[in-house]
């Protein structure tokens, strides 16, 4: 294909492209992609304003809401006591042996062993090394400074970049970019500030999140009649719906309230419901097994997902552990092309289970108020274990047989969190409480991010993270100002979203390639 210097197709090329499009071919995309690339000036390329090829294929975002404040210096940027000098004893540093180097990587991996979790008699024996070794090439850690130590506010800012793009959430942006044609582009299973809607009222209603609080049972509502004992056959159901629709089209009620946003939305949602039914999501997304009498699916004409056994094996606690149930559903939502953005995360409630009887402590990462070290270790281990299973499933799931891509190749996991934790501790204390601190870092996992990379760094004598140039990635020791928009832009840039008109900073440093 030869493009004119102004980036436009020749007449012959245009006719060829249009005929391909008319035939339903997806090969129009390369023409557009080439057109797009030709629009880039050398200055654009130098500034890093790269525009990804429009391949017409979706990309997926999984936001893991690490509620309560997941500290990056208790994980991948941990500081050894031996590095911190005179301050080591009274700051959150670890005995040298507990902070493990990762070969050929800037990351660290923390090992913690305590007989109990604060006042809870549950041992904490965790080691992050295996996870980091396995995924370091797909990991990026970006340091950050937030602007709120209020949980709900900070949670929301972690997904909006503090209103970086008109108040849109990352999930809404992804749903807008890639979610057209998806039945439920944006599904949110988290709560608090992570579950809040963005504030850009210009967004179409289709990108707003569908809230799910019970991932195991929610799929039962994805069909209007299947599983309802004694309900008529599908053909009869449709006749009844048609009668309803015919009458509503001319009803006094409908005419009276025709300007009501609620009614307009309702009518649009009715149409969407038909799409959900057509995809048999009541089966495909159903993780729970046929287990009478507690779960008598087959007696009600229902069935477990074809992937149910595989997913249950990956997340054996799906029935009792909400976080595992969320991760299971998240995989299925992506696999069946229902969603492009899914949010999951542990909540503040105690969940019993796991190897030692406790799967989630009260307040999740915020348990650090009571016992920082063990609380952080426990929760990071919980997070990473679930992510390991989720990524394994995504890697095994083909996305495009033609290119050999897996679902993982097109997915970015962003571990959002409220804020960091305060660094001071009583001299050499192993068990101590911490408060909320604006200084922290975020973890991202994806083949789409610049892997095995730390953007920014940590100043050992203070254990504070310092910033970086989001365009070049150059570390900037001493930079401590808020960079919420950089993180927001970084996620979208790595995914290859179109940021035209966003006003977002150039965050090319996040992107792979």
């Amino acid at each position, binding site marked *: 294909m030869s493009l004119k210097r102004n980036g436009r197709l020749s007449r012959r090329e245009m006719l060829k492209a249009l005929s391909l499009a008319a035939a339903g071919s997806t090969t129009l995309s390369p023409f557009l992609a080439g057109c797009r690339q030709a629009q880039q000036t050398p200055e654009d390329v130098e500034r890093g304003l790269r525009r990804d090829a429009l391949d017409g294929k979706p990309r997926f975002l999984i936001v893991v809401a690490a509620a309560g404040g997941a500290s990056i210096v208790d994980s991948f940027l941990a500081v050894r006591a031996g590095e911190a000098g005179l301050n080591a004893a009274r700051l959150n540093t670890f005995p040298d042996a507990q902070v493990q180097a990762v070969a050929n990587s800037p990351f660290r991996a923390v090992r913690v062993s305590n007989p109990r979790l604060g006042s809870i008699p549950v041992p904490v024996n965790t080691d992050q090394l295996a996870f980091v070794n396995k995924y370091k090439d797909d990991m990026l850690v970006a340091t950050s400074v937030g602007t709120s130590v209020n949980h709900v506010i900070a949670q929301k800012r972690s997904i909006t970049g503090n209103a970086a793009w008109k108040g849109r959430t990352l999930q809404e942006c992804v749903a807008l970019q890639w979610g057209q044609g998806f039945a*439920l582009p944006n599904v949110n299973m988290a*709560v*608090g500030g992570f*579950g809040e*809607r963005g504030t850009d009222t210009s967004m179409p209603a289709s990108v707003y999140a*569908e*809230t*799910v*609080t*019970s991932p195991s*049972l*929610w799929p*039962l*509502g*994805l*069909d*209007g*009649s299947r*599983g*309802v*004992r*004694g*309900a*008529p*056959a599908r*053909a*009869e159901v449709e*006749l*009844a719906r048609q*009668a*309803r629709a015919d*009458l*509503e089209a*001319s*009803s*006094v*009620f*409908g*005419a*009276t*309230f*025709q*300007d*009501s*946003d*609620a*009614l307009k939305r*309702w009518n649009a*949602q*009715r149409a969407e*419901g038909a799409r*959900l*039914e057509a995809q048999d999501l009541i089966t495909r997304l159903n993780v729970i097994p046929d287990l009478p009498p507690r779960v*008598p699916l087959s*007696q009600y004409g*229902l069935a477990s997902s074809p992937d149910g056994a595989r997913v249950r094996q990956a997340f054996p606690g799906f029935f009792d552990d*909400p976080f595992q149930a969320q991760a299971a559903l998240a995989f299925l939502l992506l696999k069946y092309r229902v969603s492009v953005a899914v949010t999951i995360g542990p*909540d*503040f*409630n105690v969940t019993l289970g796991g190897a030692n009887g406790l799967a989630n402590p009260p307040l999740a990462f915020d348990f650090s108020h009571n016992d920082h070290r063990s609380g952080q270790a426990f929760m990071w281990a919980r997070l990473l274990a679930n992510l390991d299973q989720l990524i394994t499933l995504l890697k095994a799931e083909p996305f495009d047989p033609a290119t050999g891509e897996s679902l993982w190749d097109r997915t970015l996991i962003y571990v959002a969190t409220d804020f960091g934790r305060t660094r001071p501790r009583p001299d050499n204390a192993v068990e101590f409480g911490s408060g909320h601190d604006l200084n922290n870092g975020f973890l991202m996992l994806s083949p789409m991010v610049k892997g095995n990379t730390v953007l920014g760094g940590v100043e050992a004598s203070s254990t504070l993270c310092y910033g970086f140039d989001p365009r070049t990635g150059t570390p900037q020791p001493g930079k401590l100002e808020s960079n919420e928009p950089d993180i927001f832009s970084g996620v979208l840039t790595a995914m290859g979203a179109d940021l035209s008109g966003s006003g977002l900073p150039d965050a090319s440093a996040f992107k792979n390639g």
Partner: protein
Amino acid sequence: MRPERLLALSSLAVALSGCPGRIIEPPVPPIVVDTPDAGSLARSARGNLRFKGPERLQADFAAALELQPSDVCTELGQYQCATFVHNVALGGVDPYGPGLYESSGITAVTTPLVIDRLAWSACTKRVDLDLLAPGLAQVFRGVPMSNGKLTNPEGQEVSNLIVDLTRRALTRDPYANEVTRYVKLAKDLEATSAQPARAWMQSVCFAILSSAESVFY
């Protein structure tokens, strides 16, 4: 207010308020209202409709069909649809577990499907109870059938049932076009269903109960 009027009002208030669901009143003759021209109707300027939410839906569906609220709908025969399984999809809150303290105030994409489930469940329950014991029927009664078919879809009995269901669910009399359309539905179902009378009863109940007018206020 004059004392005698106050006394009369009080008595009436007691009569009306002592039993908020059903009261024993002499039957009102069936009324079918002429269909107005929807195009010329005065429109609401505020358009302030509110979705009923899980508790009100369950209560209204139960009252309309003479069911216990807990019998309106259960998933897999045991899990309450409105107040447990689909609570959030219906606009409810879940404060103690996941910490959903406030409802978004707007319907979800899945809400219409859940409404359909509630309506099918409640209507099927009432239809089956009434057909099983016609002498004790509460709602679906007095409609002549033969071999599972309505004897006369255009008869007065069918029209009366439509009036009754509309009154129960929408607290008004039906319009002529509604009766006409539901009669057409009966004929359509005759052509496709193995048990058209039952299917029609379920379906007209479903169509009314799951209508926007029924679930918003």
